[in-house]
């Protein structure tokens, strides 16, 4: 390893450590040098508080496996905690997935009993969801009509921030991410009755789904960002 430029550059910042990685060399060499560099500088982070580490991979694609490997290497030293691994590169697959998740799917029909409508991205439904019918979306759900059936937002599992908005909110069941609530007292915190255009979101403090008027919910959460996509 006689390169004039080091493959891994360590930078100390106020908020932690930044590891800048060379983007042209072989990954194997990178791992080796990372281990050496970290081992050589143990005196820096032997004691004291946990130091957060940011890895900047530049224009190198880091796969999921490699990501785990890098984390493992860094975490093998006490007091080091990986905060983020940044890379400028994404696979086409990831981009397609991301695009599908950000897309708004407009549909105009009634979802009747026994029918299931599930979409990738946000669902914009013009029509009712009848009792026994189900709508689900990986993103948010906006219903211009009455929601009387089941709605599941953030249905790919980690969509805790997803919201469900309906002109008339009378659901039999709501699901946001992994949290399910039935329309009974105690599980859905209904703020007030007879409100038009209500919004359901997951209040992580109480771990329950809360239904509130849209603008009241807006104040509490940064929903304007979510809704601006409309």
């Amino acid at each position: 390893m006689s390169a004039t430029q080091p493959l891994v550059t360590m930078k100390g910042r106020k908020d932690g450590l930044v590891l800048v990685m060379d983007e042209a060399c072989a990954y194997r060499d990178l791992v080796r040098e990372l281990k050496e560099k970290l081992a050589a500088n143990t005196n820096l982070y032997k004691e004291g508080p946990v130091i957060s580490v940011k890895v900047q991979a530049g224009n190198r694609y880091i796969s999921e496996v490699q990501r785990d490997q890098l984390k493992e290497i860094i975490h093998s030293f006490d007091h080091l905690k990986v905060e983020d691994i940044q890379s400028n590169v994404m696979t086409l697959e990831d981009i397609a997935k991301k695009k599908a998740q950000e897309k708004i799917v407009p549909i105009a029909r009634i979802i009747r009993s026994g029918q299931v409508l599930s979409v990738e991205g946000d669902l914009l439904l013009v029509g009712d969801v009848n009792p026994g019918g189900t709508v689900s979306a990986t993103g948010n759900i906006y219903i211009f009509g009455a929601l009387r059936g089941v709605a599941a937002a953030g249905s790919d599992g980690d969509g805790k921030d997803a919201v469900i908005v309906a002109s008339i909110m009378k659901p039999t069941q709501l699901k946001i991410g992994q949290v399910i609530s039935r329309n009974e007292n105690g599980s859905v915190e209904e703020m007030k009755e007879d409100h038009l255009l209500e919004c359901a979101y997951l209040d992580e403090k109480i771990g329950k789904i809360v239904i509130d008027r849209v603008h009241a919910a807006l104040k509490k959460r940064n929903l304007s960002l979510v809704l601006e996509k409309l």
Partner: protein
Amino acid sequence: MGEAIVVTSGKGGVGKTTTSANVGTVLALQGKKVCLVDTDIGLRNLDVVMGLENRIIYDLVDVAQGRCKLNQALVKDKRFECLSMLPAAQTTDKTAVKPSEMKKMVDELKSDFDYVIIDCPAGIERGFRNAVAGADHAIVVTTPEISSVRDADRIIGLLEQEKQITPPRLIINRIRQHLLKSGEMLEIDEIMNILAIDLLGIVVDDDGVISSSNKGEPVALNPSSKAAQAYRNIGRRILGETVPLMVLDEKNGFFHRFKSLLGMR
């Protein structure tokens, strides 16, 4: 070329067979050539309600399997020249007929009759698919009960997937005025809100329906019964007339009658 109308509901016991018999009867009363088709193979009832059980020689399955010609299986009504019935078989089950065979039969009937009324069995399986295979229009029957409305909703969803059928129309059956007034029964508006299809008519619960069914005479033949009036209105709406909905909470005072005479209701 006539039209085929399937009468369906999803749930059992809401009055599909009674509705089929009465709608067929009122259309025949208007002078139309009508054929009633019972597709409830294995549990046939339409012949009993029509009082034609003793005239059955061949049935729908015999026609489908080529044991007889279609017009040999048709049973002529004893009261009307223009009303016939194609009975279902009682000895086999729904799998004895394929949807394609049903469609062929209904198409053949449509060339001879003005209206082919198909009585659908309960459920959403083979029997349902047989019944809707040849239909051009659909009537969904529901009662003002939540389970019945739920099933009607399911059925409407399935009918909407059948491209050859025009949007279904609704009959709300067995409305009990005293329960409606006390708010214990689903209101008509509430049902319409959920199902969101055109209303073809409402039929009040009438003791006469049961007694006339048992006698083998459709209630529509007795013009003094309220249910009969409702079925006659439905028949006229099928023929394309505009008939206002029946007033349920009738006030029989002198003043009211006077007002209705003047058309003020």
